[in-house]
């Protein structure tokens, strides 16, 4: 009975894995086929060729796109970490009048769908002259209610006595923040970092709006560009680009999965 159950479970798990992973594996396989084979509709390449990868980097500035995406994601990650942790620190360790009102204001931002604000945001960024610049791609995403919540949740688990002990021994607030709170919250900071990197890397609509040249264009927009130009002829090249684009985030996800799972729960539910 137990053996049977285990066997059935494994069978189910395998089937589900196949279904879930199929599109990724499929793209991976296509990326090694030459054009003729793709058009024949094969699933398994008869001969693995790296030509598509070479072509992907030659025909479009894929490397530049990757670089841009990396820079943008990294800056947003850094910005969110700094700005969210400062705010979360104030919400947990500083008691002052009006704090709760400000906190409520932060909650309220979660109710505003970002898409509902994109028109004025676009106009703002345009006026600031930030179109086609890293600034326009990053700065609007520095403040994150999610990040503030996530870190606040974690900061609250730091015993208040640590703060009081610091006060008694005359340790300044910023020093306490920097030397105690941040190191103790490493896991949450990693979670937020991974999360913000992932979401920025995968961002689509905003970069589509504020970039229109290759100098700052991110890789997601590059993909769209490729797909609409290369359609029907060179799917192998497109798929090679897809694999290149998803590789960093998949790796990041596999490494940070545990953190992410715990962190997302914390930031969301409590």
């Amino acid at each position, binding site marked *: 009975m137990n053996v049977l159950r285990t066997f059935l479970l494994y069978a189910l798990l395998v089937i589900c894995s196949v279904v879930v992973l199929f599109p990724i594996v499929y793209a991976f396989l296509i990326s090694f086929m030459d054009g003729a084979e793709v058009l024949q509709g094969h699933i398994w390449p008869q001969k693995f060729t790296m030509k598509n990868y070479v072509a992907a980097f030659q025909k479009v500035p894929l490397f530049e796109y990757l670089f841009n995406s990396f820079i943008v994601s990294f800056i947003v990650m850094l910005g969110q970490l700094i700005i969210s942790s400062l705010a979360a620190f104030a919400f947990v360790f500083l008691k002052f009048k009006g704090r709760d009102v400000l906190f409520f204001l932060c909650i309220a931002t979660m109710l505003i769908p970002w898409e509902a604000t994109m028109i004025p945001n676009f106009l703002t960024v345009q006026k600031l002259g930030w179109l086609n610049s890293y600034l326009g791609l990053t700065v609007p995403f520095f403040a994150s209610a999610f990040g503030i919540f996530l870190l606040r949740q974690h900061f609250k688990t730091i*015993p208040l*006595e*640590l703060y*009081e*002990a*610091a*006060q*008694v*021994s*005359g*340790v*300044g607030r910023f020093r306490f923040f920097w*030397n*105690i709170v941040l*190191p*103790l919250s490493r896991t949450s900071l990693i979670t937020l970092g991974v999360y913000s990197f992932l979401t920025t890397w995968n961002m689509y609509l905003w970069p589509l709006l504020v970039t229109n040249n290759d100098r700052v264009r991110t890789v997601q927009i590059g993909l769209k560009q490729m797909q609409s130009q290369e359609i029907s002829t060179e799917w192998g090249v497109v798929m090679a680009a897809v694999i290149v684009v998803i590789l960093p985030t998949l790796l990041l996800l596999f490494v940070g999965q545990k953190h992410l799972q715990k962190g997302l729960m914390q930031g969301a539910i409590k």
Partner: protein
Amino acid sequence: MEQIELVHVYKSYNGKDNVIHDLSVSIEPGEFFVLVGPSGCGKSTILRMIAGLETITSGTLLIGGIEVNELPPSERNLSMVFQNYALYPHLTVEQNITFGLYKKKISKQEQKKRCLEAAEMLGLTDFLKHKPRQLSGGQRQRVALARAIVTHAPICLMDEPLSNLDAKLRAKMRSEIRQLQRRLGITMIYVTHDQVEAMTMADRMMILHEGRAQQIGAPLDIYNHPSNTFVASFIGSPPMNLAKAKVLESLLLFDNGRAMRLHHHLPPSTQQIIVGVRPEHIRLAKPSDDHFIAKVVNVEVLGTETLVTFELTKNEHWIARWSGQWNIHAGEKVPLTIDETAFLFFHENGQRLDHSIPSYAAGKGEHQ
């Protein structure tokens, strides 16, 4: 070394109800002063007000004769040990000990020296590079102590520092802390809910109940002369036996008809009073003694002493404490006698009636 004085101190969180009510006390330099009371009595609040972690609603706090109500904690020149030790889990023992020193503009060398000194004193020398989680409860406690010592602050505050340790270790740390305080000559204010800790450690102590000071004094004075029934039952284990009684000439009449005849020391009035006797003053009667017969309800033989619970009245049980091991069983009826000078009398409202102050404390102290 500095004197700490609280003058008519009140504390209220909501502006209406006082958590601390009109507290005045003066703590002498070099004194080991214990704040003791049941949980929720406000003892930690007082400590935190002295530390500056809580504001003082009204009244004055003086340290060394200077009003410090508005000084931030760091400028009060004191150290504090927390119940859960408040060690920084990601720093080594050494970093923990020296963490607060940077602000005091102390050279790296001096920091190192002080750290080693304190570590030596507390037997932590081998653990300086360890993280707190690698240490046992007792060692963590010592790190917290070391952190307090290195500041060289003349005042040290401790908030239930031993409550996370097991009984054996607690007894050991009790004497260690006491010795340390004597050696360094610092003023110690120590909060605990454990009356044994208070009794064994304090030079003087304050008993608190519901935000009010019940009594301040040396442990034995308080033990022998509790100022009210709360103090009487809080200090001492097992607690003082108390029972309501009426006074009729030289008779003490208890609720269910039991009467005891006393020769002296009766309060003059005939009103309802409360009678108190420490368990160690109830003896097995010799044939010549005035005695009363009581039914034994429970016997606990503890090795060095025996606790005998007996029926004073139908619904009132008292405990007697006899040294040695006694072969008595529940259900037996035994003759008991009470040295009448041992009786304490309290007003119905709990305050002790003044006249009953026999001087047995000097002679009979088996509790020493």
